Structure formats: C-alpha cells, structure tokens
C-alpha cells in the first residue's frame, strides 16, 4: 500500500504558515472536574500534530470540543476566521471542514461502504452522486478497498472499516482531520494498514491532529508533539526533541511506560 496514496484529493491547501485552527484560553469542565485548563494552541495549515497523554487526561475531549461535539466553558476555538460554537447556526457548515475519525469506526451498519461514503456529500453538500461516486471509488482503490464498495460494514475487518471511515471523512474535503486513537481497537496486524493511510495523507500535506498511542508512528508522522497532562499542554516540541529530551518529569514518566527494561539474566545474577 505504499506509494503515491491519496494524492490530488481536493480540499487540501499546502500553503503553510497560515493559522488554520486556533484555540485561545479554552476551558472544559465535566461538572466539577476540569478537563482542559486554559489551553491555547495554534495549528498551521499543513501541519501534522500528534497529541499524547495518559489515558483519561482529556485527549478525546479536546478533539470533541474542536468538532463542537462538546460545549466549552471558556475561551474561543476558531477554524480560520470562523468561531466554532455548538450553539451557532453555521455549525454544520463548519463541521464539513473538519473530518473526524473515531476509535470505533462508527460506520453506519445499515448502509453499504459506498453509501456510507456518499451520504454526507450528497445530503449535506448536495453534490452530484456520480461525481462523488467517482471520487469515492478512486479513494477506495487507493486504500485497497475498491472491491468492498458494495459490502456492508459487518463484512469488513476492523482495519478495513477504519480505512473506510477515513475515506468517508476525506470525501467531505475537510481542511482539518482529527484522528482519535484510530488504531486502538484494532488487532496488531491491522494497525499498519491504517497508519500507512494516515502517513500518506501527511505526505500529501494535509493538516491533521492525531491522538495515538503508537509512539513509533507519532515520531514518524508528527511535525510537533503535544503532551497533555492535568488539563495543560506541558510539552510542545518537534518529535526528536520530545522523544529524546522531554523537558518535564511527567513526560519522562509517560514515555517510560512505553519502554521495557530487559529482565533476562537479572534473575540469575541475583542468585
């Protein structure tokens, strides 16, 4: 599946150095617990950001706030010039510009793969069925699933479903893609096929915010790594720096949970 994947897809804009997503002093609470504590962040066009942090620290919540699936209690989130607000009228138009892929795929089980992909472009963007179908088939072919277009989600493996979910989001021509632990529910041998698709998207210059626990992948794909801890982004650095020389104790501890010390031989020495 390597090679020139997913190129010449409309909706991308490789002009870098222009802020696409801005978060200013964003605060998010669930009842009493503070999940996002005064977070400010800018994502430039064409940037690939990886967000890491221990389980339950609020990574999914942050993505959900960006897509207005959760209201925020303070601050402002903007995509380009437009403010993202769960209560605003223009919400569906701004959501079209943000593609989101969830951990559990969330394909629509009663529709074929192709219908899953066509639904939103047809009903939300009112584009012609023939045009979207053509595009969908090209994209499916590039992720190796052309012959599955007529299948139902239940007939696909987890990795295949996740690739369909990515294509479904791409067909809306989003300006920003959000990935929330998209390989966390997959069997190990399927992780690669999904990550390869995301790598190809990165190579093509898409703007993406990725939550993942695959550290090798994070290192390969990220322009910047953010580390979220206790509601704050306490590290914001290029991957080399983050993985080699984390500044904070918390990040060091976090990274340590991904490495194993050898235990072979130690037992014998002890005796």
């Amino acid at each position: 599946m390597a090679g020139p994947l997913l190129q010449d897809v409309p909706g991308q804009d490789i002009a870098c150095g222009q802020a696409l997503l801005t978060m200013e002093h964003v605060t998010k609470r669930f009842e009493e617990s503070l999940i996002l504590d005064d977070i400010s962040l800018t994502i430039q066009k064409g940037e690939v950001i990886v967000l890491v942090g221990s389980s339950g620290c609020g990574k999914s919540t942050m993505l959900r706030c960006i897509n207005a699936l959760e209201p925020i209690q303070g601050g402002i989130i903007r995509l380009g010039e437009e403010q993202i607000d769960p209560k605003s009228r223009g919400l569906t138009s701004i959501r079209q510009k943000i593609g989101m892929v969830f951990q559990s795929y969330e394909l629509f089980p009663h529709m074929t793969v192709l219908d899953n992909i066509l639904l939103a472009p047809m009903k939300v963007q009112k584009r012609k069925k023939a045009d979207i179908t053509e595009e969908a088939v090209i994209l499916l072919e590039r992720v190796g699933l052309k012959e599955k277009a007529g299948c139902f989600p239940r007939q696909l493996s987890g990795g295949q479903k996740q690739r369909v979910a990515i294509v479904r989001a791409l067909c809306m021509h989003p300006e920003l893609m959000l990935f929330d632990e998209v390989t966390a529910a997959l069997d190990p041998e399927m992780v690669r096929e999904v990550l390869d698709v995301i790598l190809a998207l990165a190579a093509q210059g898409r703007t993406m915010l990725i939550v993942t626990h695959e550290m090798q992948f994070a290192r390969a794909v990220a322009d910047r790594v953010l580390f979220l801890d206790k509601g704050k982004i306490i590290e914001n650095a290029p991957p080399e720096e983050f993985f080699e020389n984390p500044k904070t104790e918390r990040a060091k501890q976090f990274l340590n949970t991904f490495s194993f010390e050898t235990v072979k031989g130690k037992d014998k020495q002890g005796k």
Partner: protein
Amino acid sequence: MPDLGLEVLLKGQNMERLLIGLLAALKISLVSVAVSLPLGILLGTLMTWKNPFIKAVLRVYLEIIRIMPQMVLLFLVFFGTTRAFGWDLSGESASVIVFSLWGTAEMSDLVRGALISIPLHQYESGEALGLSKVQIYRYIVVPQTLRRLIPLSINLITRMIKTTSLVLMIGVVEILKVAQQIIEANRTASPNAAFGIYLVVFLLYFFACWPISVAARYLEKRWR
C-alpha cells in the same frame, strides 16, 4: 385411523361458521393492531425524551397494563365500566379497547428499546459529518430503528391475534366460541368431534399467523 369426528364440519354450515368466527377474531386483532402501532410509536418516542413527568406517566401505564392479565382487563372494561358509567359497550368494542391498550403499551416499549439501542456514537458520527438533526434521524436513526423493530412488532401482532381467543369470555362469538357451540350441538351424534374441531381451529390459527412469521423471518434475514 381414529374417528376424529371431522364429518361434523361438513354438516350444515359448520365450516363456514368457523371461518366467520376466525374473521371475527382477526377483525378485533387487526383493528387493535392498526391502533396500537402508530400510538405505540408515538408513546415509545416520547419515552426516550428527557421530560421526567411524561416518562413517569408512561412508565406507570406500561407497568399496569403489563401486570394485569388480559382477561382481567377484559372483565374490567366490559363488565366494570359498563356498570360504573352505565354506557353500552359491545363485546367487540370492549375487546378492541383492551387489545389496543395492551398493544400500545407493548409496542411503545419495543419502540423505546429499539431507539435507545442505537449507540450515541452513531448520532455523533453523523454530526461530525455535518448532518443536521433531522437528517441524522432520517438517514441514520430511523432506518436502524425500523430494522430492529419490524421482527419484534410482527411477533407482537401474532401474539395479539392468538390472545383474541380470550374474548369469548365476554361473550364475543369468535372462532373458539363457534367451535365450542359446534361440539356441544353434536355431542350425541359425534362424541369425538372435540379433537377434530379443535384441530381445525389450530390449523386456521396457524394459517392466519404463519405468513406473518414467514414475513418476519424474511425481513430479519434481509436486514441484519
């Protein structure tokens, strides 16, 4: 071959009377079904709303109807209310009222169950794609709910048809009542008729409900 007394069926208009009895039973159940399905869908949808008052009222209704044996409900409506309110209610009308009350309660519970079984994530992934609330219901929630609902509601319909046999208790002449009358009238001539007649009743019920079950199985296969 034992004597099943089947020749009794050929006497006079006995077979025709049985069929008319079946129609009487079917009429009561089908009218009740026609009332129960839309009302049940309405109440079931209301039950998934957040209003605690509506929820509580509907819950109480559902529980009461469920706890009471249908026979008690029939007696209550037919004998109880005619006495208490002094109105004139035919056995058929009383039966339709009772079966509609019961069918609506059962249906609303099925609808509620099917609606809440659609995971929240399905709504969210529709929202994330930019679909409006109405579009999410129309293209995602309602089709999935219907697929879950159709086999269940068909099962309810066959249960309603079968349970109409109770209405003979309030004097409605339906198939079972006709069968009893025929057996009674031929007691001396064909003492064995009971087995044969009830067998025919069984077959008639079977052929009324069987196509519905087949349809349910077909839909279930098609829409997994």
